[in-house]
């Protein structure tokens, strides 16, 4: 998909090299996401309020995404839901990254620490992911905080594995051995030799985790956990829209679903392009 985008752009931006184009693409996409979050934060309460005079309206210029059964503008609701999703995604992926960095480095210290970390990873992987999120969010008292904590505390496993493997590989390198022979402390080696190699993994891992977290937030709220049914969350909007499919109100499901899809794809594109820039092995693709 990226190559297609890049090919299409080739004619438009002739004077710019590939690297610059990628940077431009990434910044444009990021701008879109930031715009969603910022505008959702500034949604006027009146825009979300009910207007029973104009309920179940099909999309029009005034209501680009139509209105729902309480006459609320679906564009504003979708925006609010996506904003919430992205914020939850951001919180979840940054918390997960911190956890995986910590656990990944912990496993490099010694054998016992390593088995504890692998055991933890196995434990979390053995429980179905959605179930785990629901369990954690109920354990933390439900509500929006419950969902955020649930999503945040369950996405660190795969990145931890990657970090752990990376650390193991780096530790076998000769310059690490030489460094040890020179009498550098473990901390110094971790800071100056291992950590710089891990940095791209963290950045990429965080961004790739984003869409996962968002999809999981959407599924949990879709199933009715966490938020009240009148609050805008993308899962709630979608599950509510299911009730009206038989009445023919297709726009209730279509636009929010499409928007969610676009946001996810945007994150995927950013992740892929960023990977090309940061990963030396892929830098020349």
């Amino acid at each position: 998909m990226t190559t297609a985008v890049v090919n299409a752009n080739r004619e438009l931006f002739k004077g710019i090299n590939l690297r610059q184009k990628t940077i431009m693409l990434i910044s444009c996409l990021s701008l879109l996401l930031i715009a969603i979050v910022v505008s959702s934060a500034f949604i006027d309460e009146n825009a979300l309020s009910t207007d029973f005079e104009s309920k179940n309206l099909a999309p029009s210029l005034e209501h680009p995404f139509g209105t729902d059964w309480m006459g609320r503008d679906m564009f504003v609701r979708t925006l609010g839901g996506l904003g919430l999703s992205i914020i939850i995604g951001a919180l979840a992926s940054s918390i997960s990254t911190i956890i995986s960095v910590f656990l990944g480095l912990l496993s490099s210290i010694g054998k016992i620490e390593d088995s504890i970390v692998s055991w933890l990873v196995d434990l979390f992987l053995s429980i179905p992911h959605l179930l785990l999120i629901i369990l954690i969010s109920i354990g933390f008292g439900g509500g929006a905080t419950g969902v955020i904590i649930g999503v945040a505390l369950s996405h660190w496993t795969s990145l931890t594995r990657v970090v752990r493997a990376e650390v193991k590989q780096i530790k076998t390198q000769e310059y690490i051995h030489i460094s040890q022979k020179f009498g550098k402390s473990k901390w110094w080696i971790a800071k100056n030799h291992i950590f710089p190699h891990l940095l791209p993994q963290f950045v990429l891992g965080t961004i790739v985790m984003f869409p996962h977290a968002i999809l999981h937030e959407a599924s949990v709220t879709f199933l009715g956990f966490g938020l009240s049914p009148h609050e805008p969350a993308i899962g709630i909007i979608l599950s509510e829209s299911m009730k009206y499919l038989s009445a023919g109100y297709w726009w209730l499901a279509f636009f929010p679903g499409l928007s969610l899809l676009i946001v996810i794809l945007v994150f995927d594109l950013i992740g892929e392009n960023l990977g090309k820039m940061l990963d030396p092995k892929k830098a020349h693709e």
Partner: protein
Amino acid sequence: MKKSLSMLLIGMLLVVAVMVSGCADSKTEASGTEEIRTDELIAAVGTHGGEPESGFNPITGWGYNHEPLIQSTLFNRNNNAAFVGDLATEHSASEDGYTWTVTIRNDVKFHDGESLTAEDVAFTFNTAANAGGSVDLSMLEKATTIDDDTIKFELNDNQATFINKLAVIGIVPEHAYNEDYGQSPIGSGPYEFVQWDKGQQVILEANPDYYGDEPYFKKLTIVFMEADTAFAAAKSGQIDLAEIPSSYASQKVDGMKVVSLDSIDARGISFPIQPETGEKSEDGYPIGNDVTSDIAIRKALNIGIDRQKLVDAALNGQGEEEFTGVDKLPWGNKDAIFEDGNIDEAKKILNDAGWKDTDGDGIVEKNEVKAEFTLLYAASAQERQALAVSISEESKKIGINIIPEGASWDKIDTLALSTPVVFGYGSLDPTDLYLKYYSKSYDPSSYNNIIKYSNPTVDSHLRAAITNPDQNAANKDWQLAAWDGDTGFSSKGDATWMWMATVDYLYIMDEKIDIGTPKIQPHGADIFGNILEWELKGN
């Protein structure tokens, strides 16, 4: 990552496919309803009760508030809610009101051919009283038989409203009753139980030996569906009758009509009357609310909110405004009804009581307490959600901030003593008022007097009402409890609840079905209440 993306894409495709097929269905549906079905009725009803968890057992609550179909009761209510004998032929109460005698007809047989005797009646009531099901039988000491056709009920409290209990509990056979009775019930009602496919449907067939009128529909299949699925099924001609949410009121389907039934099912907000003192119930749930314990807040909301606006908006006009929770019933007090939607008056009440907007955010404060509270509603009930959201928007106009929050009943149970809740009540039994407002009815294990209300004058009116064997005089006492010119539980008095509206029940059905004169619809509706009158026109 790739996998989840493709999953999402597939999901989207599925949604589109469903929509397309939904549209296609509506075109072919006409041929579905052309089929001549003579005496079989397939219905999806019961958004409230739905599929009974513990089966079709009157002892655990089946048929309470609605026609049990499989079993028969001692009394029925006619279209005006007056009592008529079903199994009972005569009844009398002793002078002191502590002993009731009921005579039953002797020609009634259960579906298995055994005769229904006084033994079965006594057994049913004694078992129900011990089981502590959803019907409150705490006033019944014991039921005994005098002879084969006569039962004596001994009460521990002279409640004249006891006859209501005789009209809601279906009689079960003593010889065929055990714990699994609800799975394959035997009764003496107009319909015989055939089959129950859990989660899907229950099939009933007309009882050939029924002592009453013969039903037109010989086979009754009740399917358990979500309202939107039921609508789609009705649209495609798979079912003849479906209960639909009010938001579907304007839907048109060829060959089907939308029928709206008035009900006495009121929606109201409970206001915890006690202030927050840190007191906890036995289960450790907090009691009291510092905002709603102030009568000015409760009065301002009752006077300031325009109920008709709530009905028009949140209920799609499918309802009527409601002031005391029992407006339409003989024991409803017309004097307690007033002109609402008066924002200026509401603001004045708040201002006089010391609630003022000092920080300019549009919400009033008093002694550092903000006029703000959470309003819980059952997340599964759409009309309660709409009412909660609407009232939250309306209340801002008088300076009170209501934060709606949808929750499961399990969660609501833990908070109901300290947080206002959107409740639904609608019973033909005035005992409901006694349980709601009588101070000693307070029982944290149930919803009885959940607001912890206590007013000695109201108590004495309620006590007079419940013990008065003269129905008309009792109605007068019930009315005085709401408002006696001086005090009462209604908005004019202590403004204990904020009653908003009664909801209409909506059905979409084959236009050939004639449902006669429906009975008064209580909480959860009772569309089958007059099933014996139903027929198919044009056949």
